[in-house]
């Protein structure tokens, strides 16, 4: 094709710029989507809360004042009232953001990653692989979450990491199933065969073509499950697997608040609202991201 060369105008756009422009376009699309923007703002606020908790919190999160426990919101400078130990609820929710965010994001990230990988392999290779992986997933799904968690704790000891691990592992089968279903559809697409005809190997086909085209349901499923992960964290801390008192997390505040639901509902309400807001944020962001990643969606 060298004989063509003289006709060709020099490459006008430098490469780096072009790459950027593509990423930019996803970003721009996200920013254009009002709901996604709301979602991002919520997430951004949470990130700010978790990073700057000491600056934002009005009280030390663990300072007890047993005489003034469960005081109403607004009383004595406690914006959201106090908890059952007289600790400032607002400050605890602010401090709790970090744990809850980390658990929500990383647990789903972990489960999502492994589940997606397994689903990709099962769906793409089919046959024996499919049967083995999916039946294993059935088995894993059958394991009670609590049993799984206690077992993990025994092997690895307690800690935040293991909360993430336990919740993550419990989320694997769901992702695997969703991804597998999607792969079964996508792998029949003609462009997959085209790629094969170009000489691409399996991993390129899987990761460069099938995976990007499976992202939409993965994102939606992941963002929907963040709430579950945040709530599960509380359940786990009661089994000794994970975040221990007095460390604050939304889930544990919520769970503690349960015992005062009738007389002092503010504990459960505000922590529940925090979870709800974050879920809203993640879902709006997730939906927006899904649309932004889909070049076909007009924003």
């Amino acid at each position, binding site marked *: 094709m060298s004989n063509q060369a003289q006709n060709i105008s020099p490459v006008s756009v430098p490469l780096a710029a072009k790459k950027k422009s593509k990423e930019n376009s996803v970003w721009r699309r996200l920013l254009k989507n009002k709901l996604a923007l709301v979602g991002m703002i919520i997430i951004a606020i949470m990130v700010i809360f978790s990073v700057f908790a000491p600056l934002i919190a009005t009280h030390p999160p663990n300072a007890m004042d047993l005489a003034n426990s469960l005081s109403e919101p607004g009383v004595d400078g406690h914006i959201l009232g106090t908890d059952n130990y007289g600790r400032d609820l607002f400050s605890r929710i602010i401090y709790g953001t970090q744990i809850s965010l980390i658990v929500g994001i990383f647990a789903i990230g972990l489960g999502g990653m492994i589940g997606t990988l397994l689903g990709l392999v099962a769906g793409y290779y089919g046959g024996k692989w499919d049967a083995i992986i999916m039946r294993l997933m059935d088995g894993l799904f*059958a394991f009670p979450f609590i049993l799984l968690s206690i077992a993990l704790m025994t092997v690895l000891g307690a800690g935040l990491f293991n909360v993430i691990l336990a919740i993550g592992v419990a989320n694997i089968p769901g992702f695997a199933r969703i991804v597998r279903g999607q792969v079964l559809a996508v792998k029949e697409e003609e462009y997959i065969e085209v790629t094969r005809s170009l000489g691409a190997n399996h991993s390129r086909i899987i990761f460069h073509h099938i995976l990007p085209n499976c992202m939409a349901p993965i994102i939606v499923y992941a963002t929907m499950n963040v709430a579950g992960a945040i*709530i599960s964290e509380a359940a786990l801390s009661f089994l000794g697997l994970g975040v221990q008192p007095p460390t604050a997390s939304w889930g544990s505040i919520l769970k503690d608040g349960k015992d005062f639901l009738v007389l002092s509902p503010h504990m459960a309400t505000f922590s529940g609202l925090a979870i709800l807001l974050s879920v809203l944020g993640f879902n709006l962001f997730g939906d927006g991201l899904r649309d932004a990643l889909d070049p076909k969606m007009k924003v």
Partner: protein
Amino acid sequence: MLRLILRRLVDLIPTLLVVATTVFIITRMIPGDPAAVLLGPQASPDEIAKMRESLGLNQPMYLQYIDFLGSLLQGDLGTSLGYHQPVLSLILERFPNTLLLSVCALAIALLIGIPAGIISATKQYSAWDYTVMILSLVGVSMPIFWLGVMLVLYFSVHLGWLPATGMGSLSEGFGSVITHLVLPSIALSTIPMATFARITRSSMLEVIRQDYIKTARAKGLREFFVVWKHALKNAMTPLLTVMGMQISSMLGGAVLTETIFSWPGMGRLVVDAIENRDFVVVQGTVLFIAVIFVLINLLVDILYTVVNPRVNLSNKGEG
């Protein structure tokens, strides 16, 4: 079809073997001596030792494992350490209760979630759509215990319409079971309901753009039938997948719901058993649940062929 069912049942064997082995290992690995837990805080060390012996816990691990597999092969799930009853009968006593609760919750979730999703999709970007979507997010982030207590406070304590907890019994009449069923089913249905609404919406949005929907309209069909007959059946496939997953986790024991409403189901059985280190019951229930899951997946796969005649079962999942 028959072949598929048989193959799946054969598949079950290795699954169960893996599950059985894993659950065996895990139950032996976690701290907490069944004998000690069973005997309670007041037990003395030699009583515990005696108990261990009588439970066969002092045998070498491999012998216990062989024993376990051996009786499993004969369909014997063993005898509960705490209940002193055959595990299978414990499970079979509770499974119908869990089934009843799950089916009701599922029905509620479907009856509300799917129409909500459909209306949302047919009126995309309307106030309706936003309402349904926001509510569904509230639904997934609503902790069951919170919702359960609120429902009971309002409907049982405040209004006195419905019983707060328990399952009632058929001997008090069918109505007794029904009234006991209402609140737990509602509590249990929120998450699936929200999920169904979202899935239905996105899947309907896809379907409603298809040519055959245009065809149906061109026939002069009422919009109602276009949506509920022509579109819905086509939108069912992803819904079925999610439904299968939701049913699976419900039948595996809606632990929280059962605990809050004191519903005598599988979930409580298994959690109790774990806490009491009743390994035999844990093993039995986990295996049982595994079987149920595989069967539900199979059922879902069969349902695929019902809603979608194009799906060829024998190719699905094995091709």
